[in-house]
């Protein structure tokens, strides 16, 4: 039974703690209300900035900015809320004058940042391409709060214009940067193209004829040369045949008309005869001595012929004969020994031959002083024919050689063809790549330029002020009514709490049951509190007395104030002012 709280317990509690409840309640209420009244009114002004889409659809011209609106707003926020900008505004509109002495500059700026509010307004938009609705920021509100409504309005507008400026600047910067970058890229690529072109032309030049496009013509040329060569070869062959035939013919013809010595035809070819005679002489010299009549005879014949023909060139024959003799000597020496007469003969012959050969060797160049000119017309004819054919042969051979070398050249070209082709293709490929890139960049530059145009003619996406900041008539803060209500609630809570604590600490006996529990004896009676009329009257009198006393005190203090502090009229005026303010605030709150 003790644990349940019945209504009579509550009534008793209230009765007991009346004073405590009321005093605490009114104390807190007073406090709260004073706060509600004393707090200065703060006005807030707001402006809405709309993020307007670009006027020309972005299918045609790309927007300068591809970020999300929120990011943009945030970045601009950082810019605008920078220290120097805010300092400017603070100085211009003389804000926070009262806080200048108390707070540092940084703290004032921090406070200002806190007084600026930015809120995104979002709406679901349908993405044209994917036709799905996305929630994007379409506008944002910018508000500023402060004590003076006029300056609040001005500051808000100023901030709004700062935002717009910052955004415009950003966008034009972006555009300019883009175009510049693209331009640079383009010129770089152009240079590359030029380099590549030079490379290609150099290559072409250096590999002229080996390029794949020349393969056809090369083959043609080769076949042509082949044909030519074959023709010339045929001609050559025929001329060679003729030459052989003529040579054969000329062999049968004596270049000189026959020489008559001693009335008889000595030799068809006196040169031959002479040669024979020389050799004869040498062999005779080896056997006989000089004084032998055979040797004298031969010598005589030789001198006669020589006077007619000239000294025949027998150098070669002699060298031949010398070789032969040497061989013979060696063989014979080996067989018969050095003292055999054959061997002695051969040794002598060899000695003479070598002497002759040596003599002839030195006089070889001068040996052909007088060549016997052939005077047989047939012979001469044949000789000239032979000469012409030989000339022809020579020229043909030369031509063929030239053709061969040409062919070789062209064959080489064809050989190199694939390798050259490969390299050439590489070069071409690189070139193509660069060219494609160039085209791309060129396109991009076009786009950027048109975006730039868009921006410059102010048709791009931009921030516009949808509604300018108005002059706030009513303060937004503090919520006096709210504070008052809160104060009431807090006062109530505090008073109940405080009283409950006091009640809890109060261990006095309150009910008969309590007493009965402590004592073993019954509670015989509960006697009510008796107040006589006299006591009531005297209590009332006491209250009156106290109120009167307080009034006296107030009156006295007013007199003192009047005398020593300020005239009551001034005080009244001041009070009136205060009262007006209070009334305003209360009135406004209500």
């Amino acid at each position, binding site marked *: 039974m003790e644990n349940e709280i019945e209504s*009579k317990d509550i*009534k*008793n509690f209230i*009765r*007991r703690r009346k004073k405590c409840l009321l005093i605490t309640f009114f104390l807190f209420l007073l406090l709260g209300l004073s706060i509600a009244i004393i707090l200065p009114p703060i006005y807030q002004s707001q402006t809405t900035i709309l993020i307007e889409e670009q006027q020309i659809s972005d299918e045609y011209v790309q927007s300068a900015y591809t970020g999300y609106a929120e990011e943009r707003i945030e970045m601009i926020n950082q810019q605008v809320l920078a220290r120097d900008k805010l300092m400017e505004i603070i100085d211009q509109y003389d804000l926070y004058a009262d806080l200048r002495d108390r707070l540092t500059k940084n703290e004032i700026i921090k406070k200002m940042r806190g007084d600026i509010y930015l809120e995104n307004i979002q709406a679901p938009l349908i993405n044209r391409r994917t036709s799905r609705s996305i929630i994007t920021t379409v506008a944002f509100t910018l508000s500023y709060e402060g004590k003076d409504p006029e300056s609040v309005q001005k500051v808000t507008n100023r901030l709004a214009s700062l935002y717009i400026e910052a955004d415009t600047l950003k966008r034009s910067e972006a555009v300019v940067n883009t175009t510049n970058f693209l331009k640079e890229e383009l010129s770089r690529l152009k240079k590359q193209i030029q380099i590549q072109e030079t490379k290609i032309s150099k290559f072409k030049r250096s590999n002229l004829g080996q390029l794949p496009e020349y393969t056809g013509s090369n083959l043609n040329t080769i076949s042509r040369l082949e044909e030519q060569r074959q023709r010339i070869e045929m001609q050559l062959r025929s001329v060679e045949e003729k030459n052989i035939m003529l040579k054969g013919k000329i062999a049968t013809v004596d270049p000189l008309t026959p020489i008559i010595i001693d009335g008889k035809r000595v030799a068809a070819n006196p040169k031959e005869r002479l040669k024979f005679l020389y050799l004869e002489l040498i062999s005779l010299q080896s056997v006989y001595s000089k004084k032998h009549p055979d040797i004298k005879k031969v010598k005589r014949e030789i001198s006669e012929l020589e006077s007619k023909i000239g000294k025949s060139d027998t150098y070669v024959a002699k060298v031949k004969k010398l070789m032969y003799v040497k061989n013979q000597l060696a063989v014979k020496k080996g067989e018969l020994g050095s003292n055999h007469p054959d061997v002695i003969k051969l040794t002598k012959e060899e000695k003479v031959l070598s002497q002759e050969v040596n003599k002839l060797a030195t006089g070889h160049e001068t040996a052909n002083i007088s060549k016997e000119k052939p005077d047989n017309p047939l012979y001469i004819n044949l000789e000239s024919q032979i000469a012409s054919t030989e000339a022809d042969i020579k020229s043909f051979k030369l031509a063929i050689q030239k053709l061969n070398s040409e062919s070789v050249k062209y064959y080489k070209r064809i050989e190199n063809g694939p390798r050259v082709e490969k390299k050439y293709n590489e070069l071409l490929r690189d070139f193509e790549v660069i060219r494609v890139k160039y085209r791309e960049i060129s396109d991009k530059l076009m786009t950027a330029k048109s975006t730039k145009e868009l921006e410059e003619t102010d048709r791009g996406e931009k921030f516009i002020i949808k509604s300018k900041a108005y002059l706030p008539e009513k303060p937004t803060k503090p919520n006096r009514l709210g504070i008052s209500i809160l104060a009431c609630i807090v006062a109530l809570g505090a008073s109940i709490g405080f009283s409950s604590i006091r009640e809890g600490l*109060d*261990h*006095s*006996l*309150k*009910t*008969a049951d*309590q*007493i*009965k529990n*402590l*004592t073993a*004896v*019954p*509670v*015989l*009676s*509960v*006697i*009510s*509190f*008796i107040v*006589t009329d*006299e006591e009531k009257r005297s209590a009332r009198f006491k209250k009156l007395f106290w109120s009167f006393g307080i009034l006296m005190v107030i009156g006295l203090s007013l007199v003192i104030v009047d005398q020593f502090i300020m005239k009551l009229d001034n005080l009244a005026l001041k009070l009136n002012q205060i009262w007006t303010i209070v009334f305003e605030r209360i009135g406004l709150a209500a």
Partner: protein
Amino acid sequence: MSKLRKALEKAKENRGIENQNFYRDIKKSQKPISPKDRENDLCRPEIDICYSQTKIKKIESHVLRKGKIISLFHDIDKIDEIKTLRTQTLNFLNKVSGNILLITSANPLEGKTFTAINLGVSIAQELDRTVLLVDADLREHTKYHKDFATDFFGTDMTEGLSNYLLGQAEIPDLLVNPGIERLVLLPAGRPLPNSAELLGSPRMVMLVNDIKSRYSGDRIIIFDCSSLLNCADALVLSRYVDGILLIVEQERTTAAELQKAMELLKEKPFFGTVLNKSKSKVY
């Protein structure tokens, strides 16, 4: 001179009679009681006393009302509470065949005197009893509490128990009837510093014995003394009484104090408590 002398002599005579009959005032009439009734104690003789020796100080009823002696006024509804107390007290006293009560409390100013006086007056309203109300609170007068004569009866009674205990006066001289039938007061008199000792003195014992024996059955004696936890007076007095009543003030006496008081009243004829100054409407 003769008139004066006559008066003086008459006075002596009266005193003389009074010396024999200590307290007895002449009963005006007394109905005969049958022995059977006397045994049952249910039927008591009506007592109608004419105070011959006891001083009579007629107190105005408005003064009495101001003094919170509500038992006299039937228009105040709170007297039922007093009546309840009276009935239970009398029952108890009957049970133990006693007639002396002690009224005390744990702390001062809890309403002992108020209760004592009202109880006494209430008992006196019963047509078959008389009450002797003794103010045994001989402590120094405080701001709030002088003695019951001053506080409750609105008059000044300077002579009282203290005088008797000091041997300065005799009881018959000190008794006062405040104009209420069947109620006699013995005021406290001057406050004494050694009240506890005096209350335990042989003179006090003598007084108590005399009171007791003389009026058993008819007269109820109520001692109103100082608070238990303040001083030893109440403990001293508790030796002589038949029943002790403890007054508890609502919302002022703490449980600890009550317990202390209980300790002190162990093995004493403590028979009940009274919750006084209750502000709750329902108990």
